[in-house]
């Protein structure tokens, strides 16, 4: 069972999970009827799910996870225009760290993937940046001092 929590998702992330759940449910139904499912060729689904094709228990496990997430989801809302200079969930943030620029999207834990520039709002950097605005210099000093200078904040629909 999943940990008890709210899952923050972007609109795109929510859409992706809903599509995945629908595809897996259709797949399960076809398998139960003994039909040969072709739906896993869908572009919405990771092609590697093909490894689930003959193992219904894996599909069921993933479906249970998805259902739980979708029941506890909180959609990330874009803030009103006047608050879009402040970092919150869903913000794209351009920062300067030790003379180098980097760009992060602040997302919920489920969509986080720092290798792709998506930082969790529950990570120390994510937590620290939330609530700050352009021009702020945020200092982390434990155990090694680092300064994050916030250069730009945008939201995808802004």
């Amino acid at each position, binding site marked *: *069972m*999943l*940990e008890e929590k709210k899952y923050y998702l972007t609109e795109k992330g929510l859409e992706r999970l809903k599509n995945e759940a629908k595809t897996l449910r259709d797949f399960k139904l076809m398998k139960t009827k003994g039909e040969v499912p072709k739906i896993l060729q869908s572009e919405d689904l*990771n092609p*590697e*799910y093909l*490894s*689930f094709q*003959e*193992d219904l228990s*894996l599909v069921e*496990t*993933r479906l249970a*996870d998805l259902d739980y997430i979708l029941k506890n989801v909180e959609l990330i809302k874009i803030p009103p225009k006047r608050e879009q200079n402040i970092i919150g969930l869903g913000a794209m943030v351009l920062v300067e*760290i*030790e003379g*180098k*620029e*980097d*760009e*992060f999207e602040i997302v919920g*834990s*489920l969509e*986080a*993937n*720092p*290798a*792709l*520039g998506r*930082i*969790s709002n*529950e*990570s*120390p*950097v*994510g937590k*620290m940046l939330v609530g700050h605005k352009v021009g702020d210099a945020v200092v*982390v000093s*434990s*155990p*090694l001092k*680092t300064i994050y200078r916030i250069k730009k904040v945008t939201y995808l629909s802004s």
Partner: protein
Amino acid sequence: MKNVLDFFIEVGKLKTMPRRGWVINQIKDPEDIGDHIFRAAIMGWILGAEKGGLNIEKLLKMALVHDLCEIYAGDVTPYDSVLPKNKKKLRQLMKTWPRFPVFVKKGLALKKHKKESKALEKLIAKLPPKIRKEIKSLWVDYEKRLSPEGRFFHQADRMENFLQAYEYWQKYKNPPLKPWWLWAREFFDDPTLIEFTSYLEERFHGKKQKK
């Protein structure tokens, strides 16, 4: 059983493949990929049990298979695309955490994933179908962080790297710790593992816990 034996022999190669991150950091006699897998499994198990609510058997199997692909794909580091040949420049580079535009990050991640997926397919191709599917599904789960176990072990695995970095730093004053902390503060978001980093800090920097 012949194919299973062939698989075991291939897996054994991980016992003599040094971890590339330590090689480029010029660590003397660095650990092998097999060494990393062993402690990552132990850490995943115990820290996972500490967190609670996880299927430990699944987590342990995931830990055992998560780097099997490296037998053929090799061990990739975030520095690979920018590595200078000059040793002095290399030492300078290792003091920083490499930063790339988002499109470059995506390209690197996709390339790595495809290479590793192909390598794993090659390795497990002749195993019995049930085991083959289980290994592939566990790896996909870990890579894509599909389940609570996949999400947790994805981070616990990196915690093993972090601990190893500290152990080498204590012994050789290398690798530089700054890039590790820059990365760690962006990477970890699991509360149990974030708490664990504070114990690393206490152990290696002598800082007292607040609680």
